[in-house]
């Protein structure tokens, strides 16, 4: 548990001091919003509003992949990853610390992107802010659990940045389909059914457990 907090604190502190990663992710995801606006005719039409939840999550996933790639790239400098591998505790706690930091950084980006989305597509997201934050948090946990695990893998393969989305996207189908459904029903009716939330919770739990255990094997001795 101390390891978790130490890793989380270290990651958030380095992020706060440079703010490179969060700024890059934020600018990127706002760019994605802008590109969507121009690639979809009609601007803030009813059709665009209907598509908006899916587009929002695509922007989130792209931003997450960008940030997750950096999460372990910084650890390659001065061979910090070997230092992390030597932690005198279960490495699963290192994983949880890293994943928690990723969720936090992604959360900042997600909040700003949702705000921009609401403006551009004329969605009133403020009235469902709290349940929406819950759905987004559940989705982020799903993305960042397997995302953190395979970011540690991808960073030590030949085509680092290319490898992560290839590994990650097919695994995220359950997370994305549930999160998009829940977001859509929140945006349209202000309520969310139990089924997508249940799927998000189950997926998060399974992915967190296998990633916690699997992280032991992705760091070198």
């Amino acid at each position: 548990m101390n390891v978790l907090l130490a890793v989380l604190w270290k990651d958030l502190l380095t992020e706060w001091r440079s703010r490179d990663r969060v700024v890059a992710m934020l600018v990127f995801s706002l760019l994605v919003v802008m590109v969507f606006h121009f690639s979809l005719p009609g601007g803030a039409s009813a059709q665009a509003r209907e598509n908006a939840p899916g587009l929002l999550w695509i922007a989130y996933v792209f931003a997450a992949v960008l940030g997750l790639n950096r999460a372990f790239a910084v650890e390659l400098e001065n061979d910090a990853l070997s230092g992390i591998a030597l932690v005198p505790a279960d490495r699963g706690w290192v994983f949880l610390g890293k994943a928690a930091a990723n969720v936090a950084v992604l959360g900042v980006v997600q909040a700003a992107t949702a705000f921009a989305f609401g403006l551009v597509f004329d969605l009133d997201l403020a009235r469902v802010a709290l349940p929406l934050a819950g759905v987004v948090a559940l989705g982020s946990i799903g993305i960042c659990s397997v995302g953190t695990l395979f970011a540690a893998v991808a960073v030590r393969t030949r085509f680092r940045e290319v490898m992560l989305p290839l590994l990650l996207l097919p695994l995220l189908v359950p997370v994305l389909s549930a999160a998009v459904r829940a977001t859509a029903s929140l945006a349209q009716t202000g309520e969310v059914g139990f089924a997508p939330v249940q799927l998000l919770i189950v997926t998060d739990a399974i992915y967190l457990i296998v990633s916690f255990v699997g992280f032991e094997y992705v760091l070198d001795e």
Partner: protein
Amino acid sequence: MSRPVSESAPHPLSVASGRPSLWTSGALLAGLLLLYAFLVASAPGDRVQGVIQKILYVHVPCAFAAYLGFAVTGVAGALYLWRGDERFDRAALAGAEVGVLFCTLNILTGPIWARATWGQWWAWDPRLTVTLILWFIYLAYLLLRSFTEGSERGARFAAVYGIVGLAAVPLNYFAIQLFGGAAMHPDNLEGDSLGPGMGWPFAISVLTGMAAFWHLFRLRVDLETRRAALDFAGESGPE
């Protein structure tokens, strides 16, 4: 740079013990293929679909072989992480490669049949979607292996991915059941969905598919074993 081949250290892997059974599985497959060709040719045509229905005898065995391959990859990967025995890693790699091959055949034969019977090449039917996601997962698995170049680290990475991939199967299935389109695949193949006279051809085609999987799997493991033995022979003792 050439390194001296050490002749003093025989390696257990260099024993080609797999040869006789490779002949056996090859002969079994050849015999079954003959029987398969005969039975499928003489099987009755479907009353409604006509001759296109015979694609069943390719499509379904390929699906079973693919699922078997992916299951082998997940289980062998877990055993590799647990026991550290390279033979499990070779089985995992062979399972994924042969599985992706059969999955590709399954995904290619499906639309041909679907166009003729459902009227469209690609319906986002739950079973179809799950198979497509599996195909992507194990394609990524093979890419991961090729981007790590057969190192011990790559074997560990791949094993973890194979296990997570297997864990994702029920989740995907659940997700698609919840939100996916209408099911268009027939529910059961054991029950009444096969017409009279189609039972034996179908049973033999599934058996042939399993034999084909087994033989290709053995060939692939054999190849990987020889490669490992060669690598071992090429190493010049302790560094």
